[in-house]
């Protein structure tokens, strides 16, 4: 038979236990071209066992040198590798405890766009973990700056917004401090649905603290949101409903929403009742947010008056099977029928 059969563009892989250490040894010694070695490593790391071996063998630190290599292909592959690491909990924790975050944040300004995209993938992976989001909080101003520069492609924008929303869920203050709300408001009217979805999600995270709510009301975001509530994409509608829900908690939000005639829109969203389980599950979030928004709006006298007429609709929702929707509907009814 012929010699070792390898896929093109990949280095030879040793058998069993030695596969990962050998490849890392090759990386360390820097023999020849590093890209095939990194490609083989990428293939191997998909296997959880090998990933565990990489993490516990302490090989992650070696990747730091590769991150600072001159060849953009090497950097891109290394970032791909790191992104695969973030797919597992041990990998995420190893990344967080290693010193790789500063070089990664420097690579945000890298010259090659594919490198930047991969770095964003890595950061997004890290941000899914709460501890990771916490560690990424110092980077938030820089990320906001990147967002405002608007020279990135759509995919990168989506990733950036997703990272920002994860970080803002942990702590929204840095993003608010760097003018998050106006910036995201501009992104809400982007042409691509994924960008709108992520921007709305980030806005929802930002509107949790009171400052955020006030800014949302002041910066004229609510009219845009009312448009988004009638968007085609379900996720966009869900997230927009979430922002309205958060904003309607403060009095200014309530009055603005009532002025903009948000109530009928929300009621429309509630009244659609698809029959399949799958669709129902996906709409669950939308229904919950709408109910909560209506509850907040019902605390204003004008809203209460309007909603009292719509009481049957709400009562129909109490017959829903899902526990959370049931509870939310009951709360809504309670608030609507409250008299001082």
């Amino acid at each position, binding site marked *: *038979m*012929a010699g070792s*059969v390898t*896929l093109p563009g990949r280095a030879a892989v040793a058998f069993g236990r030695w596969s990962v250490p050998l490849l890392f040894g090759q990386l360390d010694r820097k023999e020849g071209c590093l890209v095939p070695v990194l490609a083989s490593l990428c*293939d191997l790391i*998909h*296997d*959880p066992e090998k990933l565990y071996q990489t993490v516990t063998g302490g090989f992650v630190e070696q990747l730091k040198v590769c991150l600072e290599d001159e060849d953009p292909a090497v950097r891109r592959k290394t970032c791909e590798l790191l992104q*695969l690491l973030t*797919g597992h909990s041990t990998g995420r924790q190893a990344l967080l405890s290693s010193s790789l975050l500063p070089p990664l944040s420097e690579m945000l300004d890298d010259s090659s766009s594919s490198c930047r995209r991969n770095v964003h993938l890595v950061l997004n992976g890290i941000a*899914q973990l709460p501890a990771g989001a916490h560690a990424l909080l110092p980077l938030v101003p820089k990320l906001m700056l990147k967002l405002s520069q608007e020279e990135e492609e759509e995919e990168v924008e989506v990733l950036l917004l997703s990272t920002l929303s994860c970080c803002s*869920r942990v702590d929204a203050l840095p993003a608010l401090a760097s003018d998050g709300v106006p910036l995201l408001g501009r992104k809400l009217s982007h042409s691509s649905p994924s960008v709108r979805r992520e921007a709305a999600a980030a806005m*929802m995270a930002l509107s*949790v603290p009171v400052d955020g709510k006030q800014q949302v009301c002041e910066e004229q975001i609510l009219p845009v949101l009312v448009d988004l509530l009638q968007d085609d994409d379900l996720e966009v509608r869900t997230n927009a409903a*979430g922002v309205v*829900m*958060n904003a309607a*908690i*403060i*009095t200014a939000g309530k009055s603005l929403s009532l002025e903009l005639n948000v109530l009928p829109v929300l009621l429309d969203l509630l009244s659609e009742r698809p029959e399949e389980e799958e669709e129902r599950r996906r709409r*669950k*979030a939308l229904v*919950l*947010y709408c109910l*909560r*928004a209506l*509850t*907040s709006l019902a*605390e204003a006298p004008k809203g209460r008056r309007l909603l009292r007429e719509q009481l049957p609709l709400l009562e129909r929702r109490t017959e829903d099977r899902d526990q*959370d929707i049931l509870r*939310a509907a009951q*709360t809504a009814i309670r608030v609507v029928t409250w008299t001082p």
Partner: protein
Amino acid sequence: RMALASHSHRDPGGTYTFSSRPRAVESRSKYREPPAEQYYGNIMYDRRVVRGNTYAQHILPTVSQPDLAEVQRQQAVRKRILARRRAAEQLRLRTPEPLQGRRHTDVQTDLFLEELSEVIEATDTECQTDEFLDRPATPLFIPAKTGKDAETQIEEGELFNFDTEVQPILEVLVGKTVEQSLLEVMEEEELACLRAQQRAFEELRNNELAEVQRLQEQERRRREEKERRIAQQKEVLKKERETAEKVAALVYTQQYLSSLLPAVFGSLRDHGYFYDPVEKDIETNFLPWLVAEAHANLEKRHASRELLDSKINLINSDYLLLGLSVSQRRPQSLFQFK
């Protein structure tokens, strides 16, 4: 081990000595083991056995320590033997040296002459093989035919069949790719599950967060409202109290002050603060002047009367001096003296 139990050495006489310390007898078994296989050696080939004539053998001297005289005697003997040999050599008869111009040669005197030469007659022979002729081809050995005739032929493509050869390679390639893709798909599924779970959690969390915030807000509003109302109430109460106090104070002051005015006026008038200016003026200016003038007038009169009195006194005294009485005095002379 430096101190061995036994030691042997060659002493200067050339003898071999051996001495050993007493040793305890080694314990050995009571019964001998069955005799091991004995190797019988041939005495003829045993090196330890002396061969040949033993008369002239060099035997070891019986004395182990030959003394110095013996050694010297032996050396002398040796020297004597050597000397004797040399002497014998000297005494051997030789032919005298040849005279000048002559030469001695050896001659054979036998009947038959022998050639004495050291040159060994040798003949040179040489042999040369014939030039190699090409070996004629061996005639084809065709053995008698035995067995069956069979023939085989390699057809085209039988040695190497691409399809079968490529299969293992394909298997490896496809297997690796499939394995890799399986891993990746599993990983993606896992991630998708995780994300779905995370999303569900996030939704619930957002929901509950909104609810919590709404309730908080409600609480805050109600509390503020309550506080405002309480503050308002307090304000009202305070105002009422203030007005009551004011009214009471007003009444009291009125009462107090009602009697104040007449009293004040009375006391002022008593102290003389109300006066008629003309009267005052008269009092302060005119009257003192008047009084002063009157006083002055009176003073003058007083002075004049004093003078008069003094004069009278003087006159009186003069008259007394003169002894005259008053009745005799003449009124005109009074004025004279003046």
